[in-house]
């Protein structure tokens, strides 16, 4: 069964460093998302991406964050200068078709630890 894959599964970085989290969505999906979950807190929406552009972003998704789909398969989340509060589990998700019956498919998550 096709699935969303994420790498790395766990990354440890120093504060101020750049981090790139990678996702390979399901191949025929058109909509892509990043969510994050700080330990013990809610899963929060970060950004949605369709047709090579951001369709919506949350207030969490500030100028330190960016997303791109560089090669038609990968979907990346970049954090330019990590902060301690960026430590979280980051989930990528994809969706075949927009509309009111779509089911999101999630990856296993990438755990980011900022020291």
């Amino acid at each position, binding site marked *: 069964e096709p699935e969303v894959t994420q790498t790395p599964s766990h990354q440890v970085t120093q504060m101020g460093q750049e981090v790139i989290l990678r996702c390979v969505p399901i191949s025929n999906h058109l*909509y892509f998302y990043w969510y994050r979950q700080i330990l013990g807190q809610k*899963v929060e*929406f970060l950004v*949605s991406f369709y047709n090579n552009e951001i369709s919506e972003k949350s207030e969490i998704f500030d100028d330190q964050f960016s997303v791109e789909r560089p090669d038609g398969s990968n979907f990346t989340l970049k954090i330019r200068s990590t902060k301690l509060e960026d430590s979280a589990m980051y989930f990528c998700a994809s969706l075949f078709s927009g509309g009111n019956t779509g089911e999101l498919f999630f990856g296993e998550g990438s755990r980011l630890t900022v020291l």
Partner: protein
Amino acid sequence: AQTVTQSQPEMSVQEAETVTLSCTYDTSESDYYLFWYKQPPSRQMILVIRQEAYKQQNATENRFSVNFQKAAKSFSLKISDSQLGDAAMYFCAYRSWLNFGNEKLTFGTGTRLTIIP
């Protein structure tokens, strides 16, 4: 803005018994979707069940069913005949009807379900 509340951080149930996970939400919208997602340890979050707010009938998927009380803004998940494989974190989530093409979900904090053999 919508909010989703799961008041039970942890639940446990004996294998083969029935357990109900609670979820309440707050919204001013009349049309929306509600979901239960399951996240087994170190695995992907997967959709368990979905309910459209305009449908009065409660959704069911095999051993999983919901009790959707629109007026009370309550959306509980019932798992019947619990199995060891049901052990996971369960998330309740809300999606506005208006988010056409944008599956922006609002999640609760989750309930960790333990199955006792």
